[in-house]
């Protein structure tokens, strides 16, 4: 986020409000939550924001067709006589400031395929440095529109002690705290790695032979969003992926397995896959499996074709080549019955790749010690450089315990083509040889910028 935002908002709060509590350590303006966004009218978008913020708003106003002429006052009038004037300033198409006569609870800033949701702990009458989510290049997308959500005469302080709260859906969570106040089966969300950023899955695709450890044969950004009911069980799981890079000539498929989740635990009528801007289509579980396995892309090469000659036929791994937009995949998985965390497991669950060629389905490549699915070919274990031992739960390791895949829980720059991850990230070897005891943040420190792909 633009650095001016936090400071401006915090100073505005500090000057207006006195928030008192013995338990409170500090005042915090949360970073915006960036999520894939379904645009609609102002009321629709403010309702959509409540899924994240958990607070409902009576009034909403959308400023569409964002351009340089947006600067200035915008007056919203409503049938009940309520009015509000919102003034935009310092708009450069990416960042902007606003002030309003009636204080705001949430401002939604849409750009690219996602939106930033600015939720204010206390309603505020101005803010600065609002910005839409980063696009594939790692820079903020151009703002397409902004939607403002508020309640009349917003009180700067805490709700009065005699506040009457209701629980419209009778799920035990009052409407003011319920992200889904009209849905008794849903109350909140859980994110991984968080609501704004992506983690990264990085694969080598030569298994059972060792590769070159540039860990970019397939690089997939991911974010998991679990929707929870009042019993803290998961009702549905949204997996947002972006195919960020492909440094492989081999064509691979990308899939995810939910270990321990029976195939018939999935609700097929509601489970969908959305690719790029296409309409969602049904996402079936893979046949011939007892557990839930979803084949998300059967041919990564098809969706990441650059149309350029070698080496620019690679997708976002060679620095001298043109950049390509990542390929967005959104799997929306619904369960027949809510699952506990123990039943579902933890993100990123069990992602894997396999070669898209004849008899390639059995050649699955997973994260270290993650189990193969029932369709993996067990005769490949222990061949070439692989030293998997299913009897010991040992999978996808070399004799020296080297992996074929990594899970990075942070925004990450993958090694550029032909650059070993150990050279690109100087403390990767320290982390590995220490058994993870030191250099746990190897992926965000000591990066050799010359050896990683620059978006």
């Amino acid at each position: 986020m633009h650095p001016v935002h936090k400071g401006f908002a915090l100073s505005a709060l500090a000057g207006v409000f006195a928030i008192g509590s013995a338990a409170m350590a500090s005042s915090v303006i949360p970073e915006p939550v960036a999520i894939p966004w379904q645009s609609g009218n102002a009321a629709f978008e403010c309702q959509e924001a409540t899924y994240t913020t958990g607070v409902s708003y009576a009034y909403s106003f959308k400023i569409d067709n964002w351009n340089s002429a947006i600067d200035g006052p915008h007056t919203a009038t409503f049938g009940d006589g309520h009015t509000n004037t919102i003034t935009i300033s310092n708009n450069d198409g990416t960042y902007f400031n606003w002030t309003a006569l009636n204080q705001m609870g949430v401002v939604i800033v849409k750009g690219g395929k996602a939106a930033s949701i600015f939720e204010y702990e206390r309603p505020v009458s101005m803010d600065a440095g609002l910005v839409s989510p980063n696009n594939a290049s790692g820079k903020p997308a151009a703002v397409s529109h902004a939607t403002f959500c508020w309640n009349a005469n917003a009180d700067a302080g805490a709700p009065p002690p005699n506040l009457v709260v209701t629980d419209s859906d009778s799920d035990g969570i009052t409407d003011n705290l319920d992200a889904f106040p009209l849905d008794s089966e849903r109350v909140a969300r859980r994110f991984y790695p968080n609501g704004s950023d992506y983690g990264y899955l990085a694969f080598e695709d030569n298994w059972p032979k060792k590769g070159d450890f540039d860990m970019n044969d397939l690089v997939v950004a991911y974010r998991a969003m679990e929707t929870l009911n009042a019993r803290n069980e998961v009702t549905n799981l949204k997996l947002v992926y972006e195919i960020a890079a492909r440094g492989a000539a081999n064509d691979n498929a990308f899939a995810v397995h939910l270990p321990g989740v029976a195939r018939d635990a999935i609700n097929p009528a509601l489970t969908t896959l959305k690719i790029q801007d296409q309409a969602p289509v049904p996402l079936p579980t893979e046949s011939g499996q007892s557990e839930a396995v979803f084949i998300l892309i059967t041919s990564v090469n098809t969706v990441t074709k650059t149309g350029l000659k070698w080496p620019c036929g690679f997708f976002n791994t060679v620095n001298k080549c043109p950049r390509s937009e990542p390929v967005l995949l959104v799997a929306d998985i619904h369960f027949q019955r809510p699952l506990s965390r123990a039943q579902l497991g933890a993100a990123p669950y069990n992602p894997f790749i396999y070669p898209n060629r004849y008899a390639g389905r059995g050649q699955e490549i997973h994260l270290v010690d993650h189990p193969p699915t029932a369709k993996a070919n067990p005769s490949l274990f222990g061949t070439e450089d692989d030293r998997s031992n299913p009897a010991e739960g040992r999978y996808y390791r070399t004799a020296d315990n080297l992996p074929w895949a990594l899970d990075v829980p942070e925004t990450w720059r993958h090694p550029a083509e032909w650059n070993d991850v150990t050279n690109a990230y100087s403390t990767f070897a320290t982390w590995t040889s220490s058994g993870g005891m030191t250099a746990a943040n190897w992926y965000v420190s000591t990066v050799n910028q010359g050896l990683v792909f620059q978006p």
Partner: protein
Amino acid sequence: MKRLNTTLLLAALLTGGSYQAALATDTDEVEAGADFRYETAHLIPVEIKLALPNDNLASLSFYSQRESGLRLLETAFTDPLGHYLGQLQLPVHLSQVVVVVRAANRQDTLTLPISAGAITYAE
């Protein structure tokens, strides 16, 4: 022209191949233990006890703290006695979380360290 292209391609392949082989020895030399699972996240037990009025529960929004601000991890709820017992999945390099408490008469922010592999707080 065709011969030149072929020569250039061959040279590029050989150069790239030898470079690749030279670098591959670096990860090959990494010493990893048989019990190292390359895990970058862990589940941290969380227990929070709040002093709340009777029959009121609170929502707890957990955030990770970054230099540029906060990132929402999940929202959970206490029981009516203000007690929450659960787990957070966190990247292993994080040392603390920020918790925004919302209840009918209260909104606070707590910064809680991960201590002895757990997050605990009591009022």
